[in-house]
């Protein structure tokens, strides 16, 4: 599919699409909070998420036609005013957020009823929409401080949403607390870093900042700012070893939140980090290269190996997948550490692939959670017989996670590995291969239990997910497959995004 040829909205609407992709879920959140019933809240949520995704698609088409889009807020030109600045990379991630958000909203109809107290539903939907608006805003904005604001918008609500999982699993509460503390520290570090950069450059607009930072790479404040921003976003992105909050938050929160966060939250933070690493900070600054070479690459490798091993030995299924998410972030950072367009493009593609596959896996588990409140891996024995469609969708996600050919995950791993070889980083290549084998081991365990083992006698019987869950679930799984066969849509955005960032660099 060629995005250039994609006109999904009238020109007048397309011109406003970037802001509408943020504002509609924002207003939707308020409407959901005011909604008279959980059902109404759900409908508002679905409509708002869908409109946001639609606008994101319009933006993506426009970006492919016009290149970078600037949208001035308040009618003031940057750097005085705030501007949204959407390049292909942002368009891709926002599209991922929009798509997963819409499907998750549809899914939430059944999932919330099973997992969250009924009186909380409207506020829950409101929090969910706020998180979505925040993430899209974070991705679209071209302003460093505005990014902080949206970072907070996207996280503050989700802390409580994770805690709302307490109805099913009391451990959601300490997990949410950890998440809150770590997330707040991360955001604070980020804003301290932005403060230093502002002190050194006098501007908050990223492009302007980049221009003015050009000769400042020896400045102590800039260096410290770099360290704070990277560490802060590292927490948000679950960069090893700052990932402590993630497994608990994903494992114990409600399914809707696990799936939405796993698919998008870390991606948005990683995206912002890429903006800083490759766009804002000075070209070839010694600290930037040192960071990529000696910090990001080893930490990514450590994440791949250590967290994959943790996933191998995890006893609870959702925890296993959560650890896997940290390991996958490691893969993405390995792609970044190559510091070239093909590595970045591959990493972006990987982010999209991982978002879709993890969303499918968590959604499938959410579908199963409606009928069985299972946690341990053994509890899922033989679910494939009782809930074949759900299990198959999970299996497709898992296959993509492993990197089975004809899934998106394969192409993603392929690209990073190819880029690593082309960049002469044999060791990264080797780590990726080893990580893939470890992934195979734990996914193999899950598949073996789900598909080939007999259910334990007396264990609760799983039921096939209701249609409202099955439809978005199969769409997600289908996307993982479809993009495994024809990856042109994410691929063109990833490539254009990486190219536009590295165009700046000689």
């Amino acid at each position: 599919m060629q995005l250039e040829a994609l006109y999904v909205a009238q020109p007048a609407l397309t011109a406003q699409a970037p802001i509408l992709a943020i504002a509609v879920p924002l207003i939707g959140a308020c409407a959901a909070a005011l909604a008279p019933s959980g059902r109404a809240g759900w409908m508002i949520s679905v409509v708002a998420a869908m409109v946001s995704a639609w606008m994101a698609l319009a933006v993506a088409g426009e970006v492919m036609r016009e290149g970078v889009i600037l949208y001035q807020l308040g009618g003031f030109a940057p750097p005085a005013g705030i501007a949204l600045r959407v390049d292909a990379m942002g368009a891709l991630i926002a599209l991922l957020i929009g798509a997963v958000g819409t499907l998750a909203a549809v899914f939430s109809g059944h999932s919330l009823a099973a997992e969250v107290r009924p009186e909380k539903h409207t506020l829950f939907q409101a929090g969910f929409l706020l998180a979505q608006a925040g993430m899209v805003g974070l991705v679209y904005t071209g302003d460093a401080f505005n990014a902080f604001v949206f970072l907070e918008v996207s996280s503050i609500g989700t802390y409580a949403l994770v805690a709302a999982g307490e109805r099913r699993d009391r451990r959601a509460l300490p997990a949410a607390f950890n998440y809150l503390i770590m997330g707040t520290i991360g955001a604070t570090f980020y804003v301290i870093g932005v403060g230093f950069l502002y002190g050194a450059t006098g501007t908050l607009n990223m492009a302007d900042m980049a221009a003015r930072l050009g000769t400042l790479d020896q400045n102590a404040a800039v260096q410290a700012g770099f360290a704070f921003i990277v560490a802060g976003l590292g927490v948000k992105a679950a960069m090893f070893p700052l990932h402590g909050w993630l497994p608990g938050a994903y494992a114990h929160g409600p399914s809707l939140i696990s799936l939405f966060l796993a698919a998008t939250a870390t991606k948005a933070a990683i995206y912002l980090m890429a903006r800083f690493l490759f766009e804002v900070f000075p070209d070839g600054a010694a600290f930037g290269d040192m960071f990529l070479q000696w910090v990001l690459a080893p930490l990514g490798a450590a994440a791949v190996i250590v967290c994959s091993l943790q996933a191998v030995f995890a006893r609870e299924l959702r925890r296993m997948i959560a650890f896997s998410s940290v390991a996958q972030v490691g893969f993405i950072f390995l792609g970044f550490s190559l510091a070239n367009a093909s590595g970045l493009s591959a990493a972006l593609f990987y982010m999209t692939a991982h978002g879709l596959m993890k969303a499918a896996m968590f959604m499938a588990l959410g579908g199963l959670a409606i009928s069985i409140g299972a946690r341990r891996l053994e509890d899922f024995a033989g679910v494939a017989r009782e809930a074949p469609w759900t299990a198959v969708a999970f299996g497709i996600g898992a296959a993509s996670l492993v990197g089975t050919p004809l899934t998106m995950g394969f192409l993603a791993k392929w690209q990073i590995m190819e880029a690593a070889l082309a960049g002469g980083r044999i060791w990264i290549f080797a780590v990726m291969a080893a990580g893939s084998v470890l992934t195979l081991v734990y996914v193999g365990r899950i598949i073996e239990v789900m598909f080939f083992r007999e259910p334990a006698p007396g264990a609760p019987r799983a039921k096939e997910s209701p249609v409202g869950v099955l439809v978005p679930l199969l769409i997600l799984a289908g996307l993982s497959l479809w993009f495994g066969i024809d990856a042109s849509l994410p691929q063109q955005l990833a490539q254009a995004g990486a190219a536009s960032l590295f165009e700046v660099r000689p």
Partner: protein
Amino acid sequence: MNGGELLILLALTLPLFAAAMIYAVGRMPDVRETLTLVACIGLAIVAISIFVRVGQGDPPALTVAEPLPGLAIAFRVEPLGALFAVMASVLWGVNSLFSIGYMRGRREARQTRFYICFALAMFGVMGIAFAANLFTLFLFYEALTFVTYPLVTHAGTPAARRAGRVYLVTLVGASVLLFLPGIIGVQSMAGSTTFTPGGLLNGRVDAAAGSVLLLLLVFGAAKAALMPLHGWLPSAMVAPAPVSALLHAVAVVKAGVFAVLKVSAYIFGPDLISTLPAATWILWMAAGSIVIASLVALTKDDLKTRLAWSTVSQLAYVTSAAMLPMASGLVAGGLHMVFHAVAKITLFMCAGAIYVATGANRVSEIGGLGRRMPWVFVAFLAASFAIVGLPPMAAMWSKFLLITASFGSGEWFTAAALIASSLLSLVFLMPVAFRALFSPAGDGAGGEFVRPGGTPVTSLVALCVTAAACVVLFVAVEPLADYLAPIAAVSFMETAP
């Protein structure tokens, strides 16, 4: 869509369609097996049409999808692949005929799943045979691993499950850790993985990188069972005889050596191979495999296990052929792939026939059995001749070409290993038939058949056909060699002895 594309599409979809139909009519064994046979015949006709078209210089090609630029799922038939496809599809038919007798005779469970997996395996084989690039080959190669897994564990016993795990872990592990990295390496060096006559990498890599890639790709194709990655093959012998016959003599292992041949001919090319030190190392390891596997085969009393070790040895022939720094080696390897397949499927079918009739599966149990099952043991004898490389069996030619090529390229060690292994196989195969046919009395001489009537007639027909084929191909070797000549990018006659 032109005729060529249609043919490839047919070759790929026919087995899938057959599998679906078999599933649909699974409750009616007669319909199910008729359907299988019809599918076999259809597939063989399609494969032969493709074979003919390739011979006429009009190779069919088809691109299905291109997930990423430079990474396409595409098919393009060349002589080796056409030959492989014909061989596999014809032998599928023969083997299905055999299976009908065997599976009914043994009253095996899960027969529908068995036939479905066979059809799916054929889908994998067709994809491998026609693949236009390494990536496509890899796809179908992996698919073949997974659809044959249920066949290996068919018995459902703990031993079968253990064997299945070894099978899966070895093959998938090698694929992920060696083969796939190798493919990515090729892609990153050459920008594509398309099979190119004369060698895709030729002139694009230095000796070090080329050696690494060659090692990755040859060992990654663990289905070729090159030592030390051979362990899965003997252990997979827990599967029923038809599975061993088709998969472990024809489809799966041949997919492995086929991949090695393709890599050698089209990714590296004879010119590059001749400059790579790794090729020599692999050659030596293959020579070692040939001798060691023959020696091990000698010690095995279980008939199928003995045959399996013989297969390990014979596969190493093909691998060494692919690594010879001489273009004619490729042709010899291609021929040997086919001739060995025909001979080995005969042997396995004979073993299955003996088992289904008497329940005997050990060499020591068959003394004197030949009187009561003359056809089976004559066929066995003929196939043994072929494995050893005696005239008038086709395999003689391929061995002869291979040994000549080894001498011609100065690989004395390999040549010596080939000759030694021939002698060894004489020792471990001939006594089987001789003991059965000529020893006056033994364990098998008296007693009743386990199955009244002895070997089912369909099985008997099947194994006689392949035994006869060993002889027929002896005469037809020259056209076949000429047909294969383009893969070495040189005329066969120039290098023929």
